[in-house]
């Protein structure tokens, strides 16, 4: 019985470790109140009154957003791959076309983003 649950037990230990680590880090390394600029990390602190601050590049935000899109695509791709073997008996064209339409459209988006230079890191 325990052997069947070993993967879940390991994952549970990881989750507990992550929760404990998060509690420790949030207690130890940063201020709870954002209104207290003394305890904030440099990137969290608001500028003083009348003092300007360089606005950040949106490049990391765009890259993370693209990672989310790739995650969505991979989820559908995994489901498609699970069913792919059963489609060999006569529905191969349908199997390919259903995913190629999806992947093709998304791929067009990636090409457009690449041409716009959104993936070029400065």
């Amino acid at each position: 019985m325990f052997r069947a649950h070993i993967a879940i037990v390991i994952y549970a230990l990881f989750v507990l470790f992550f929760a404990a680590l998060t509690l420790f880090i949030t207690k130890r390394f940063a201020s709870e109140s954002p209104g207290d600029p003394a305890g904030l990390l440099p990137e969290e602190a608001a500028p003083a009154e009348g003092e300007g601050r360089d606005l950040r590049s949106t490049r990391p935000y765009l890259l993370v957003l693209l990672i989310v899109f790739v995650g969505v695509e991979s989820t559908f791709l995994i489901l498609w791959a699970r069913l792919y073997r059963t489609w060999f008996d006569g529905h191969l064209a349908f199997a390919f076309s259903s995913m190629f339409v999806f992947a093709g459209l998304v791929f067009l988006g990636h090409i457009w983003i690449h041409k716009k230079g959104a993936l070029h890191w400065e």
Partner: protein
Amino acid sequence: MLDSLLFYCFAGVAVLGAVLTISRRNPMHAAFFLTTTLLATGGIFLELRAGVLFRTQIILYAGGVTALFVSVLLLVRSGDAVRQVRFGVKKQMATAVAVALGFELIVVLFLARRLPGGGLLVRGSAPVDQLPPNAVAMATSLFGDYLLPFEMTSVLLLVAMVGAVVMAKNRKRHERS
């Protein structure tokens, strides 16, 4: 026994993480506690042998969406955001929403007693390790009955990609001017 223990472990961490997510005033702390909640919820999916949901939870939510939250938090000035939103003056509205949600929960629990299983807690159900794999059933449904919505998802993703780039470009142009 071990199933129950693992479930209560994951559920406890998820609830604790959720409470800390909404009670922390520092948004970066809240993002980390949200990750904890998402990971714990993924554990419940894993325990139910829902492999697709588990993978989606880890790749999309605990990975991508949390990274997106953190990058947005780094992008905006948290001090400004907290100064702009004052929850103290909206206590009455929050209380009204909480009462409405509580009432809804009571109604759902009351109506659930009339279900064939005898309520939300179904006794005598099959052990999860004897359940059939759900990935193939889900894929059959997705590429069968829901093929058109699936294909339309690609258009939605395309529009979202283009929109994200256009908004980021506009912001950058605005920053330069």
